[in-house]
């Protein structure tokens, strides 16, 4: 599964995307796995309320399923317009 990061999430991780092997079935489970990796990840994912996520380019809540998904994205609230 491809995991992609934007804005300050990308900057905190120093990483725009990566391939992740996971048995997580929801975004929340994936976040728990990633946050457990090291301090950088723990910091980036320390406040879930400041994050938004998309599964296969569709905005979803954190309890959404990622089973069969190709791409999960994490980013701060959007500031377009």
């Amino acid at each position: 599964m491809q995991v992609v990061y934007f804005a300050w999430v990308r900057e905190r991780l120093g990483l725009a995307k990566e391939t992740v092997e996971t048995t997580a079935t929801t975004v929340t489970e994936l976040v728990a796995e990633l946050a457990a990796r090291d301090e950088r990840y723990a910091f980036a994912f320390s406040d879930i309320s400041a994050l938004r996520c998309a599964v296969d380019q569709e905005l979803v809540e954190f309890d959404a399923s990622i089973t069969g998904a190709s791409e999960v994205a994490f980013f701060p609230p959007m500031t377009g317009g």
Partner: protein
Amino acid sequence: MAVRVQEAPFGAGDELDKFTAGAAGSGAVVSFTGVTRDAEDGSLDHMLIEHYPAMTQKALEQIEADARARWPLDDVLIIHRFGVLRAQDQIMMVATASRHRVAAFEAAEFLMDYLKSRAPFWKKEVTQDGADWVASKDEDEQALNRW
């Protein structure tokens, strides 16, 4: 119908004229243009707009489809830039055409509200003192509740 996500500048006046000419019979055309503001103290060097290319076009087309489902619109235009913008540069525009002025206005406001909080763009202000991601505003999130 047009959704354009681009790095290049656009001319809001030209776009408005083309849009209006293409919406024969509409009667009412509303446009919104977003312009890069300088920092309060005039220190903005540039604004950097990041987006999520694989998602952006799709998200904007969905927002347009939602607007068309709610109002009788003859045409809709959404243009949003990414990359480096200077103070006074035009960031984005939306336009709506309808027989009814209230529909044209409401749809344009709806598009803007959703574009602000549901389209995958992030703004970073770069000044001499450093760079900061623009924080989302509670009022922008709350604005969605009126629809």
